[in-house]
């Protein structure tokens, strides 16, 4: 139905643009403006997605001139999920890591964003301090300097987090909670460096809140805390949803899991499995990455499904 409408618009465009009514003109320009990005999205996101699914369902043959597959059904998935000894375990580990870090990440970045959004002296300085590591973190994530791992290891040993860990362990809190807390303490640098984009997203969300709302609240005599609960939090809640999506996706994309006692990045593992040489591994690799993607999607779906119940849309 929608497609037909678009077609109708385009057809009449070729006849007479001037006779179109205002709404149709707007729609037409909307589509024209969207087109370059859309083509990119189709070629580099949607089509590859479909192709990956196709590869994962077939046994791929790579010859000098062609790359073809014969349909084998769910064989590849069977291999990945039942024969491969590590993949399942690594997926679960990535999931658990993500779940423990997620709430901390969201709260921390919301908190910092609110602080950065306030009016006080030296705000520019603090903004710079919090935004510069985004540059650094994204750089190192892709750049993979040997220095990077050195930095995170030594920063932990220099900052001497041991006493904090000891404090948590000996404080008599139930063991499940204390192990969660120690994992926060141990991963503090990883968590902090992954907060950057979320802080930016929250900042842009906070600044979309109309100042008149705050004025009203002040007139009505709200305390700062009430203002936060009744205005800031509901107004920023759609951004929380987006941050959740981004954090989950990012945390899966860069998930580090243990393999034979060593830390490996899960997506690197999939890559190394895919390009082992023999062409049947292409199918396995495609199946792996599809399972991986499906899990990301499912997690995002579940968590966002729960959270979106509490999201407030202003319009």
């Amino acid at each position: 139905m929608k497609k037909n409408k678009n077609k109708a618009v385009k057809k009449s465009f070729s006849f007479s643009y001037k006779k179109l009514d205002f709404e149709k003109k707007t729609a037409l320009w909307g589509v024209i403006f969207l087109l370059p990005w859309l083509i990119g999205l189709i070629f580099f996101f949607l089509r590859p997605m479909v192709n990956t699914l196709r590869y994962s369902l077939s046994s791929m043959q790579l010859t000098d001139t062609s790359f073809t597959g014969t349909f084998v059904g769910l064989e590849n998935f069977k291999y990945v999920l039942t024969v491969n000894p590590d993949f399942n375990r690594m997926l679960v580990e990535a999931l658990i890591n993500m779940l423990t870090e997620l709430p901390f990440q969201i709260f921390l970045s919301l908190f910092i964003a609110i602080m950065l959004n306030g009016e006080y002296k030296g705000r520019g300085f603090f903004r710079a301090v919090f935004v510069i590591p985004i540059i650094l973190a994204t750089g190192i994530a892709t750049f993979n300097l040997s220095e990077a791992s050195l930095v995170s290891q030594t920063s932990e040993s220099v900052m001497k987090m041991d006493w904090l860990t000891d404090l948590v362990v000996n404080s008599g809190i139930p063991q499940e909670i204390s192990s969660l807390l120690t994992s926060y303490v141990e991963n503090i640098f990883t968590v902090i460096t992954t907060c950057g984009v979320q802080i930016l997203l929250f900042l842009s969300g906070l600044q979309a809140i109309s100042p008149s709302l705050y004025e009203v609240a002040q007139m009505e005599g709200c305390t700062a805390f009430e203002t936060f609960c009744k205005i800031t939090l509901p107004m920023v809640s759609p951004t929380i949803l987006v941050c959740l999506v981004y954090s989950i996706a990012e945390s899966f994309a860069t998930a580090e899991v243990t393999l034979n006692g060593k830390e490996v990045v899960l997506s690197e593992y999939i890559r190394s499995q895919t390009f082992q040489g023999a062409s049947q591994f292409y199918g396995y690799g495609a199946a792996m990455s599809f399972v991986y993607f499906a899990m990301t999607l499912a997690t995002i779906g579940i968590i966002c499904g729960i959270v979106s119940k509490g999201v407030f849309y202003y319009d």
Partner: protein
Amino acid sequence: MDILNRIRSNYLKKKKSRLDFAPSVKKTPRSFWGNVALGLFLLLMGLAFFFPVIYMLSQSLKPMNEMFIFPPRILVMNPTFNNYRDFVNVLANTVVPVTRSLFNSLFVVVVGSIGHIVIASLCAYPLAKYKFPGSNFFNQLIVYSLMFNATVTMIPNFLTIARLGMLDTQWAIIIPGFASTLGLYLMKNFMEQIPDSLMEAAQIDGAGYVRIHFLIVMPVTKPALVTAFILVFQSFWTNTGDRFIYTEANKGFAYVVQQLASGKISGVGSSYAGISAASAIIMFAVPLIVFLIMQNNVVSTMATSGMKE
């Protein structure tokens, strides 16, 4: 302590005088110590955020014998610029002249970033401001493609690039970069705040959509554009072009530095630890300079630019 108290009383006095003419509202003003605590917290968090940068900097200034002391120190005893000198020396003797790879990087960064900004803002404008068939669907598509994971689409992407005949050229990095979504999302959020009346005014004066976009929407959304620019600049600058570019002469500066940092360029020997620290700082310095130039604009408020309705 005495000084602190004096500052505190000054602070309270100032605050009181400011409130003289304000309507009497029930307000619990944050106490002085509360502000101090918050400030301290911010400072601590900032320090934790900033620590890796400081550590990298100190590491790059260390002479060889200090570099491997355990536990590592932040303070450098005898700071030297030897690491930077070695870095430059090695770069001067690479097989492919370093100017060539610098030029490659420059090309990718300039064409890629500007192209991305133009295309993404073009896309963000109608999505933020107009309703048309399918606009809801596209809005959701943006959020979904935030989870764009390069691993999943690795093989097909490679094939797409190959079929387009872009393998081994810079376009293999630039073109896929156009389709990234994060900047687009930031821009769309920001553009939703532009008052409609501004665009209506332009329309009444006879501006078409293209002109409205380039002469009104883009200048007004400069903060979002700049933020997106910094993010995308960074991703292009650090792209080593692995698995898309094979000819050494076509690789970018990031690739050369990466080879250096991991000690893969011959003739470096054991000094590569220092060189890699220096190269990390240099790789980091370029986006930093871009950031500092544009810093005033990073996600600054709409309210301050007087555009709020």
